[in-house]
């Protein structure tokens, strides 16, 4: 298939149905809406269910119900809508049924704005809903990568009976880029054994997240956690750029990682030995490669479109052994490559410290810029 100029939201929607999306349930919210609109036309064409729900609560619980039948189902929303979905996500996780959702992240907190941001990292990566569970979280940096990760999302959801989130910065949802969408694939033929169907085979199935007996709930949580260990061992994905001889490393995901790459390239042209680590799975987090880098580099710069949410995951790995600095823009402000380049130049020029918190130093530096 040839490349076409396509918007991120539309591309993910079309990719999802081509990899076998059997039902979609959603609610309009900017900057995600084109995804819903595209499927509102395409799903009925293919004879597949599309429901515009009464709310994000409705949408995620429709996904919950449909997921209990073992079909490939999904929803999409943006930050404030995703906050509403947290209840449903916890129930889906607690019932161990596979589901995919797309969060086209916008500026917050509160109603915030509709500009691109990465402020949902903590909510998505570190839980959000109640109880012990993890989501697999994929963070693309281009429209093409978003397409490719959509197929992966459904495969991982099925494989681990897990929720997979495609965390698409608002910029990627709205941006048009040349990209290639995979050809139409057949729908999943087999019904998983655990799926409800009406007990036509005489085998009654009950899907629930309730375990009134605490030891039973504990066993279930143990199962979820050991499955997560398996996911951590097998499903980490990241992209590295110029890391072989790097003295310093920028860490950034999604749009921030992509912008940082431009800055890294510009810095390389100036002879600065710097590389980029771009996590593609922000959950599971690429701890191992970060550990290896900690041993050999002089320092890190974490770049995000939030106030340093992934920063804490980086610091957990680095554990004060090497200096970590932070640069971010928040609330829907997208950093320019020049700003990141300035931060890189500062990183390699000033004496670095492992004392204090990088967020405090960043806030002090930004006082004149933002405050």
């Amino acid at each position, binding site marked *: 298939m040839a490349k076409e100029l396509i918007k991120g939201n539309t591309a993910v929607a079309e990719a999802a149905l081509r990899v076998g999306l*059997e*039902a979609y*349930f959603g609610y309009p919210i900017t900057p995600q809406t084109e995804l819903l609109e595209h499927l509102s036309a395409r799903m009925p064409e293919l004879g597949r*269910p599309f*429901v515009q*729900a*009464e*709310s994000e*609560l*409705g*949408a995620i*619980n*429709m*996904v*919950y*119900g*449909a*997921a*209990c*039948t073992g*079909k490939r*189902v999904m929803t999409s929303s943006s930050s404030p809508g995703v906050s509403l979905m947290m*209840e*449903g996500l916890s*129930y889906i996780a607690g*019932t161990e049924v596979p589901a995919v959702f797309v969060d086209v992240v916008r500026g917050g907190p509160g109603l915030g704005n509709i500009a691109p941001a990465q402020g949902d990292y903590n909510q998505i990566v570190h839980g959000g809903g109640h109880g012990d569970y993890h989501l697999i979280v994929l963070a693309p940096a281009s429209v093409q990568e978003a397409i490719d990760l959509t197929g992966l999302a459904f495969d991982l959801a099925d494989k681990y009976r897990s929720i997979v989130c495609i965390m698409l910065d608002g910029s990627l949802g709205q941006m048009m880029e040349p990209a290639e969408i995979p050809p139409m694939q057949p729908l999943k033929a087999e019904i998983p054994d655990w799926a*409800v*169907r*009406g*007990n*036509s085979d*005489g085998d*009654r*199935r*009950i*899907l*629930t*997240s*309730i375990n009134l007996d605490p030891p039973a709930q504990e066993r279930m949580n143990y199962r979820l956690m050991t499955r997560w260990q398996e996911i951590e061992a097998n499903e980490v994905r990241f992209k590295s750029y110029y890391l072989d001889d790097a003295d310093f490393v920028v860490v950034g995901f999604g749009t921030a990682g992509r912008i940082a790459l431009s800055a890294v390239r510009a810095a390389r042209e100036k002879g600065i030995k710097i590389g980029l680590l771009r996590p593609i799975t922000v959950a599971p987090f690429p701890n191992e490669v970060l550990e290896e880098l900690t041993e050999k580099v002089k320092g890190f710069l974490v770049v995000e479109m939030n106030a340093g949410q992934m920063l804490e995951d980086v610091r957990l790995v680095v554990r004060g052994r090497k200096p970590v600095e932070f640069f971010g823009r928040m609330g829907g402000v997208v950093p320019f490559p020049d700003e990141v380049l300035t931060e890189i130049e500062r990183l390699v020029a000033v004496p670095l410290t492992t004392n204090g918190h990088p967020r405090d130093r960043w806030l002090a530096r930004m006082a004149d810029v933002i405050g």
Partner: protein
Amino acid sequence: MVMMDVPTRVVYSRPEALDPRVTHYCPGCTHGISHRLVAEVLEEMGEVENTIGVASVGCSVFAYNYFNIDFVEAAHGRAPAMATGIKRVLPDRMVFTYQGDGDLASIGMGEIVGAASRGELLTVVFINNANYGMTGGQMAPTTLPGQVTTSSPTGRDVKRQGYPIQTAELLSTLDGAAYVVRRSLHNTREVRRAKKALRTAFEVQKHRLGFSLVELLSTCPTNWGMSPVEARDWVEERMLTYYPLGDYKVSPAVAELNL
């Protein structure tokens, strides 16, 4: 003792769709009756092996333990959304929710109105016992004016706590709703009428005529602080006046079903 050779005929037995186990419901609670009615109807329609139930949060949270059918358990109030998801991907299955008044008429009002207005091909069994049963008898949207509950200890004051919601009447205004009726379980005659209504509701779904809901006035002797008999009388004397029994919506297509 002389054994007489008299032909015998089974006239009453436990429906196979009901699991033979002791329920957790209190003595005198009518959940057992409504479970049985649903089971009988599904069995008589030959739908037991083609049905998926959606349990809700409330006293009926464990309903799935008592039916011999596939079941899922929804979050509080979200059963109609979950049922929508199931029905849309398995359109030839019978899908029903079983919800109480706190679940459906308070926290789940958005989901039930959404499902009814879309005309989802679902059947909703709605238990109205005028309080939150499972959490110990708090004021529900259906609690009557003046009714004492653990969270309206001096009686529901409509000036401060608002008025009860008449769910069947409210949902009957929606075009997607094909069959919305209120019945009661407080005496034998009404139980028989309730069963007929449930049969109609499931037939409405089977014939794909739209959304169907049967509201069932039910007893909660434990939380009402009454004996089962007193509770039955309280339904008759107090609830029926605020919640009149009747057919609030019977679409022309449903009327033509002629059951």
